[in-house]
């Protein structure tokens, strides 16, 4: 039976973690993620969960405690944002390198300086290569659904890689939505018990976190890359099973309006909502622009995107992060690499937008879409980077 509740993105993350029967949470509060750990500590204080909540003095310690707990075989959850994720950076690599299937909810927030607490993707993009599976949710419902699925993806025997579920600061973390949630028992049986391959066990001693010098280190990094590349099949399997119990279907990439469009807009996270609304309006005026949302950013869904872009001849790639000195934003760089690798030539316009929480308005989105549709019609071939909504 469907159950409706009003939850913000942060509350949805905490509620999902609660239902997933998490053994250990080690976290440090940071805006705009604080509600997640506050909410979860309420569950602990009220005896609603059987979880060890470790209060730590920093995010570096939070992730360190998560790693230690995960190595004992515990199911581990944490949450952070921006500077917190940056402070965890060193430990993120240790979590993935040590193959600790931790689930982290990251409220995407700008990095200092200047100080800013609002949304953009520069925090996770700064830790892009940390060896975690990275998912971007569009709204609170997706935060809930992906957090539950993340435990299954992370802990799957074939994966054993940590997963970060990303969602935009304030627009998603703090906005109240009507969510359809599952019953506790349904989630509990969906996630099951963690079955770790190796654990810290005094009766069966093993060595974790040992050094691997030039004769071994390389092999372990390739092993991690392989696990992440192969995780597509695990993600799909989990998506299928989740759709059976929830009635909501998830995939690696979501594409809307591809049937009659030769132009497309691609972006991550909450901005997809704006894109969908504007695309619908334009469609009613006879301008067809598809909206493509990579739910999964790592592993990068090259094949899924190529399939989606099969009949498309002009794309606008919206990056909510800046890679100073790089030729494009991080999402666009990967898309261009993919298209080039498979010899697909098309008009590619990269737009940087929304840094530090600046809104991208429906009018700005409409202008991007109209230009992209025109480029497709005119069979234009170009590459450009444009900054949306910045004052000259």
């Amino acid at each position, binding site marked *: 039976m469907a159950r409706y509740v009003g939850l913000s993105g942060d509350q949805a993350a905490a509620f999902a973690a609660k239902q997933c029967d998490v053994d250990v949470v080690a976290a440090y509060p940071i805006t705009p993620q604080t509600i997640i750990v506050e909410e979860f500590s309420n569950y602990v204080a009220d005896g609603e969960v059987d979880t060890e909540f470790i209060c730590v003095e920093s995010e570096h310690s939070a992730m360190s405690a998560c790693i230690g707990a995960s190595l004992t075989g515990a199911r581990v959850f944490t949450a952070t944002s921006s500077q917190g994720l940056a402070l965890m950076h060193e430990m993120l690599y240790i979590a993935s390198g040590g193959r600790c299937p931790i689930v982290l909810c990251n409220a995407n927030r700008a990095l200092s300086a200047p100080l800013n607490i609002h949304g953009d993707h520069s925090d996770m993009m700064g830790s892009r290569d940390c060896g975690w599976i990275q998912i971007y949710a569009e709204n609170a419902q997706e935060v809930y659904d992906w957090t539950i699925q993340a435990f299954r993806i992370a802990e799957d025997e074939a994966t054993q890689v940590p997963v970060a579920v990303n969602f935009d600061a304030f627009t998603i973390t703090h906005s109240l939505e009507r969510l359809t949630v599952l019953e506790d028992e349904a989630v509990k049986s969906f996630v099951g018990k963690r079955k770790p391959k*190796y654990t810290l066990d005094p009766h069966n*001693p*093993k*060595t974790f976190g040992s050094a691997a010098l030039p004769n*071994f280190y390389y092999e372990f990094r390739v092993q991690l890359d392989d*696990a992440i590349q192969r995780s597509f099949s695990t993600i799909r399997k989990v998506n299928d099973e989740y759709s059976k119990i929830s009635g909501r279907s998830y995939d690696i990439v979501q594409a809307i309006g591809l049937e009659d469009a030769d132009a497309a807009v691609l972006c991550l996270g909450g901005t997809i909502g704006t894109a969908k609304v504007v695309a619908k309006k334009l469609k009613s005026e006879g301008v067809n622009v598809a909206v493509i949302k990579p739910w999964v950013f790592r592993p990068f869904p090259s094949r899924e995107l190529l399939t989606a872009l099969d009949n498309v001849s002009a794309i606008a790639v919206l990056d909510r992060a800046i890679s100073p000195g790089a030729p494009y934003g991080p999402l666009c760089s990967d898309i261009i690499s993919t298209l080039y690798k498979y010899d697909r030539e098309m008009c590619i316009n990269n737009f940087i937008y929304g840094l530090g929480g600046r809104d991208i308005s429906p009018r700005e989105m409409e202008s991007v879409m109209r230009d992209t549709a025109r480029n497709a019609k005119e069979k234009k071939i170009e590459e450009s980077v444009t900054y949306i909504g910045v004052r000259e």
Partner: protein
Amino acid sequence: MTQEPGWRALPIGGVVLEGGTARKYRTGDWRTFKPIIDKNKCVNCLLCWICCPEPSITQVEGDKVEVDYEYCKGCGVCAEECPVKAITMVED
């Protein structure tokens, strides 16, 4: 030389499937200088045994301490700490 296993064969995450494997890693060949204990001066106070970070000072039943050169990295802490100057560092 035997070929080390490839990445597919290695346990995931760099886990070593047994404990105490540091013993197999002989760090003695890192050494440039080695400590020599003058047993005539040594009073067996065990300060070197306490201070050695490796630990490569071994206690010997019925005798004074000795250096385990398989693991001693030659850091010289023992020579520095010895209160009776019984340890000298000589080029290895």
